[in-house]
């Protein structure tokens, strides 16, 4: 290699140049294509490149690390590494009373805080054999469905953002702001509130809430039409999402996938219909199903789910029963603040509940709700004390993420991004 630099290039170079100049550009391109087709049949002749997608990545929906083996643009293998957001929520719940644990559990899957608490409180209420009053059940349904809408709006905005459709991000967050205003009005916090309590809801609807909610519900269908106008018949969107991320339904069930990802493949599994909880059986709504199970079907399905959620909230609001917003059992539920000034017994109950907490009879319970991502379950084990002995959250994002690996084999890198978006995973739920 240490040849002195003279005017004449070495013989090898001359040969290559002569070869290259023998063909016109079109002919040269044809020869390259021919070689590609010929070599494609020889697997492994091209070195696969292993790259890191994440944990800091704009398109991985949070701190997900995918060690990707790429053959050009084609994904040969992915190896998801999770745990970058592991917060030790389950361990910390064991050190808090049942009442305090609500604030921890709600921060798990941060896009569906109400669903986290719903699963948890249903499990604790099951162990306590405590009945939730009908008004509280309807209020829970209203807040849950609003949460479903706001979660799907985040999914819509971020999925569009990842594919380069940035406009939809601003549009969907505009509506999400209105939903968050409603949360703030009733629960005091935009996200991560502790609105559901063991026994019902912590507060009733404040004045002005119903008007505002009805205004939101009135304009929402038109807004969803607007989003569909932007995307549903958009050729770029269709090109990028149709046929992407298809797995057979049996494999999805075997992988434990639930929620829109499973329903897009045609499997009718919605826990609100199959195992109704919290008065969902009173409402008339449809469960949209897909046919092919690709990313486009999942998109259409989530848009329809938003519309159905609007219908459910309208029905719940119209049929809202009178009554208390939380159960009456003073051993479990805090007494209303107005009573604390007059009743000594209430004061003692309040004191004991806040300092010691309430004891839950020994046993274990598993209750799951239909969160925007799938089956969100809570497994609570009690040893008869005031603190949960074990609180495990079965998070749908954790389970659905397992489907990414079979989906991604042989797909383009760009399609991998679409698949991650269509699975709608939230890393807070994956890592807990």
């Amino acid at each position, binding site marked *: 290699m240490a040849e002195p630099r003279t005017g004449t290039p070495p013989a090898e170079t001359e040969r290559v140049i002569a070869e290259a100049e023998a063909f016109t550009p079109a002919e040269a391109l044809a020869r390259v294509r021919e070689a590609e087709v010929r070599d494609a049949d020889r697997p492994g002749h091209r070195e696969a490149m292993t790259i890191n997608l994440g944990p800091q990545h704009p398109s991985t929906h949070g701190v997900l690390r995918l060690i990707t083996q790429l053959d050009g643009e084609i994904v040969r293998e992915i190896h998801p590494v*999770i*745990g970058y957001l*592991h917060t*030790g929520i*389950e*361990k*910390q719940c064991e*050190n808090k009373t049942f009442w305090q644990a609500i604030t921890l559990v709600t921060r798990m899957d941060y896009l569906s805080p109400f669903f986290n608490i719903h699963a948890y409180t249903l499990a604790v209420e*099951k*162990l306590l*054999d405590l009945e939730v009053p009908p008004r509280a059940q309807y209020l829970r349904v209203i807040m849950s469905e609003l949460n479903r809408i706001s979660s799907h709006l985040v999914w819509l905005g971020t999925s569009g953002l990842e594919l380069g459709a940035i406009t939809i991000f601003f549009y969907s967050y505009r509506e999400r702001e209105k939903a968050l205003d409603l949360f703030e009005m009733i629960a005091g916090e935009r996200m991560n509130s502790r609105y559901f309590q063991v026994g019902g809801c912590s507060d009733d609807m404040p004045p002005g809430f119903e008007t505002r909610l009805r205004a939101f519900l009135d304009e929402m269908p038109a807004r969803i039409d607007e989003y569909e106008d932007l995307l549903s018949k958009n050729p770029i969107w269709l090109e990028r999402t149709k046929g992407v991320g298809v797995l057979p339904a049996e*494999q999805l*069930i*075997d*992988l*434990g*996938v*639930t929620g829109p990802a499973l329903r897009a493949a045609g*499997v009718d*599994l919605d826990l609100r219909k*199959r*195992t109704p909880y919290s008065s969902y059986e009173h409402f008339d709504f449809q469960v949209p199903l897909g046919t092919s199970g690709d990313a486009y079907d999942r998109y259409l399905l989530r848009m329809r789910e938003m519309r159905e959620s609007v219908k459910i909230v309208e029905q719940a609001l119209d049929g809202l029963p009178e009554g208390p917003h939380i159960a009456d059992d003073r051993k479990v539920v805090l007494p209303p603040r107005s009573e604390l000034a007059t009743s000594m017994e209430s004061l003692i109950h309040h004191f004991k509940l806040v300092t010691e907490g309430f004891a839950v009879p020994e*046993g*274990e*319970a*598993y209750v*799951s709700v239909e969160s925007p991502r799938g*089956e969100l*379950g809570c*497994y609570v*084990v009690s040893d008869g004390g005031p603190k949960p*002995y*074990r609180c*495990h959250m*079965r998070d749908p994002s*954790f*389970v659905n*993420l*397992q489907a990414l690996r079979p989906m991604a084999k042989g797909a383009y890198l760009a399609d991998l991004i679409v698949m991650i978006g269509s699975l709608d995973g939230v890393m807070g739920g994956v*890592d*807990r």
Partner: protein
Amino acid sequence: MSEIGALIEAALPGAVVDEIEHRGELTIEIEPGKLREVAAYVKAPPLAFALLSGVTCADFPDEPGRFRVAYHVFSLETAGRLRLRAWAGALDPELPSVASVWATANWHEREVFDMFGVRFTDHPDLTRILMPLDWDGHPLRRDYPLGGEEVIFSDEV
């Protein structure tokens, strides 16, 4: 004994150790060695519990079996739920892996291994999933401290 319990016992004698019905939930305790066979039986028709919702564990240091692993299964036809339970043992806790029966058990069992130290035999890839790979100890065990920092208030500094 419940119907399901009777069916399992008939198909695999000695598999059912105990049965509990509490608050409308059926829990069947399984002999640890026969766990995989019971899983395969329960997944197939007529019971057809095709969806494994989750695999979790609870640590009872005072019990001889110590680690109680629970399997929550769901049937799509009947919308019925069942909980299978097995004790893994105190020293070298181990259970047969059901990842060959339900593919979803893969990550769940990895999480149980990571958090509790229960090994699952014949698992395709039993490594830590949530904690860093070089972490010492199993955080969700009862004898593992919660950790964290002592909170110091500004007037104590």
